[in-house]
């Protein structure tokens, strides 16, 4: 497709479950970013990939959060042992290398 796609669009998890969120960036975009957006707030940076290399993971809130992009295209954000405070919209964005990032529709995660 022409834009960034994410799946699933909605995810409900019970506290303690593991979840995996997928991002398909725009074809050919080398840079991929994950952001977390809490209700009523702006997105907050989680992690950044350039091709398959994770160059910055300083925004990951705990060691329960893990991201990968093994072939430099699709990326997966995994959250282990989910907690209620993990409830948020998770946004993925890609760029061709400049500062302009193009966002996907997000995955809304609700942890019960």
């Amino acid at each position, binding site marked *: 497709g022409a*834009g*960034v796609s994410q799946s699933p669009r909605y995810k409900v998890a019970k506290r303690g479950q593991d979840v995996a969120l997928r991002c398909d960036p725009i074809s050919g975009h080398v*840079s991929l*970013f994950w*952001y977390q957006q809490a209700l*009523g*707030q*702006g*997105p*907050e*940076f989680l992690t*950044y990939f*350039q091709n398959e290399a994770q*160059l*910055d993971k300083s*925004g990951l809130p705990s060691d329960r959060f893990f991201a990968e992009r093994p072939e430099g295209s699709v990326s997966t954000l995994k959250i282990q042992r989910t907690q209620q405070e993990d409830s948020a919209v998770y*946004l993925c*964005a890609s*760029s061709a290398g*400049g*500062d*302009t*990032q*193009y*966002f*996907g*529709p*997000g995955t809304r995660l609700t942890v019960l």
Partner: protein
Amino acid sequence: EDKVVQSPLSLVVHEGDTVTLNCSYEVTNFRSLLWYKQEKKAPTFLFMLTSSGIEKKSGRLSSILDKKELFSILNITATQTGDSAIYLCAGTSGTSYGKLTFGQGTILTVHP
């Protein structure tokens, strides 16, 4: 720590009004400032500004950057109900791989 602050947090106007949204930033080694429009889903790109005093314009929307006073404004003239959205601004740093530091957003509501 980099910081971006937007004001007002919310704004209610009637169709035809002109609005000005404000964004101030404190970003180490500042590189660019970006504006996005978010309507329930993916933030969509509006403008990227890197130079002071040069207005960027797209239809009824325009934006300008002041690097001396560390702020940007987004103007929308002749507002329409379709302009109702959250407007986000974000800064990038030359030392952070282009990650976006977002403000909390301005919620704009345009009534008919």
